[in-house]
């Protein structure tokens, strides 16, 4: 194993076989501000994880980890019970076992779940974020609004990926922290992203999950290498995918932006006064907009032109 030019050894510095062995015994990787220790005892997803996690920095075993997650495959009984996987965090399974063919999605959702439930040192917004010329665009939305697709399109078009899921802000600072993760594309979004860019590197399609068919897009390497570089929010854009609708970016009153942002946060009420102050800081410094789109190419072009003109 060798250290690369940034000083940290990366998953891709290991051979796939060595990576598989390390996964079996437990491997430490840096995911944004989180030090994760991951154990996977399911051979079927080693290759996919190797591709998706290629650029993540490896951590030594004596790291104080933010969380320990584990995925165990349990053999089935022919004709009676299909193989299952169990996701656990710090030795506890937060949900029932899932079909083994969904192992990759179960692990990825499990890591997101752990981040969502435990990261209360941050104001945690349910939001995608991408950065353009040193300024972050926050894209908060409920599931199904198209924020992951939009974020994937931006990150494949020169924007730096912060996250398709978590807007992390340390209260008391104006900056958002990157937590780049594989982007879980769902259903029609998979073919949209395949058609959008030849550089889209997707993992296997996983049908039949609770969210339909899922495929994971590998985060751009540069976004992971720069995952310690925070950025202030300049734009708050609430996206909504609406079929057969032309792109429109409409300014939103700040009070309405505050309400949408606070209700989109995972832990606004839990943080109390510091959460209020953090959202007020965001609203005070960023412009607020509603954004409707149906065509991803048009959407990325419009947001890029907008950001270009505003920086």
């Amino acid at each position, binding site marked *: 194993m060798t250290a690369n030019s940034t000083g940290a050894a990366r998953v891709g510095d290991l051979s796939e076989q060595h990576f598989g062995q390390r996964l079996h015994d437990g491997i430490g990787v840096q995911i944004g501000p989180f030090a994760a220790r991951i154990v996977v005892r399911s051979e079927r997803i080693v290759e996919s994880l190797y591709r998706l996690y290629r650029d993540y920095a490896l951590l030594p075993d004596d790291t104080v980890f933010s969380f320990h997650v584990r995925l165990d495959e349990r053999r089935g009984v022919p004709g009676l019970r299909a193989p299952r996987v169990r996701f656990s965090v710090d030795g506890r399974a937060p949900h029932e076992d899932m079909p083994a063919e969904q192992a990759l999605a179960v692990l990825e959702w499990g890591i997101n779940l752990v981040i969502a439930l435990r990261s209360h040192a941050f104001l945690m917004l349910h939001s995608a974020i991408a950065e353009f010329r040193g300024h972050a665009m926050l894209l908060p939305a409920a599931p199904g609004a198209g924020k992951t697709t939009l974020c994937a399109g931006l990150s494949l078009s020169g924007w730096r990926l912060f996250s398709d899921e978590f807007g992390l802000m340390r209260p008391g600072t104006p900056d958002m922290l990157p937590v780049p993760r594989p982007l879980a594309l769902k259903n029609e979004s998979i073919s949209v992203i395949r058609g959008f860019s030849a550089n889209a590197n997707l993992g296997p399609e996983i049908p039949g999950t609770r969210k339909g068919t899922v495929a994971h897009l590998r985060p751009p390497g540069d976004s992971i290498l720069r995952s310690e570089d925070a950025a202030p929010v300049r734009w708050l854009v609430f996206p909504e995918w609406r079929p057969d609708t032309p792109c429109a970016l409409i300014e939103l*009153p*700040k*009070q309405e932006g*505050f*309400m949408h942002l*606070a209700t989109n946060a995972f832990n606004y*009420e839990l943080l*109390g*006064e510091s959460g*209020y*102050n953090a959202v*007020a800081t965001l*609203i*005070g410094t960023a412009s607020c907009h509603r954004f409707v789109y149906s065509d991803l190419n048009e959407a990325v072009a419009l947001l890029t032109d907008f950001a270009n003109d505003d920086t």
Partner: protein
Amino acid sequence: MESGSSTYTSARLWRSVDPDQLLWNGWDDEHVVYHRPSGRTHFLNAASAALVQYFLVEPRSTQAVAMSFPPPDGPADSPEHHEEIALLLARLEHLGMIERI
């Protein structure tokens, strides 16, 4: 909660709560207020914010408030207007932003 008419006809006075209980931010005449004792966030329009921030810094009666905030299309001393003001005051009291003395 008392009915509006019984509230406004009483002689009680209203005032803002201790300013340290509230954190204010405002944009475009709209206000977002954090109420420290409850940990809740409230959204106020310009008139409600002005009522809490300026008019009730000193104790005032429901009637005095009604006269300070006349309706756009009617007399300030009408029972209907006083009842509207009484309901607004009761609502602000419920939110912990003003108190009766």
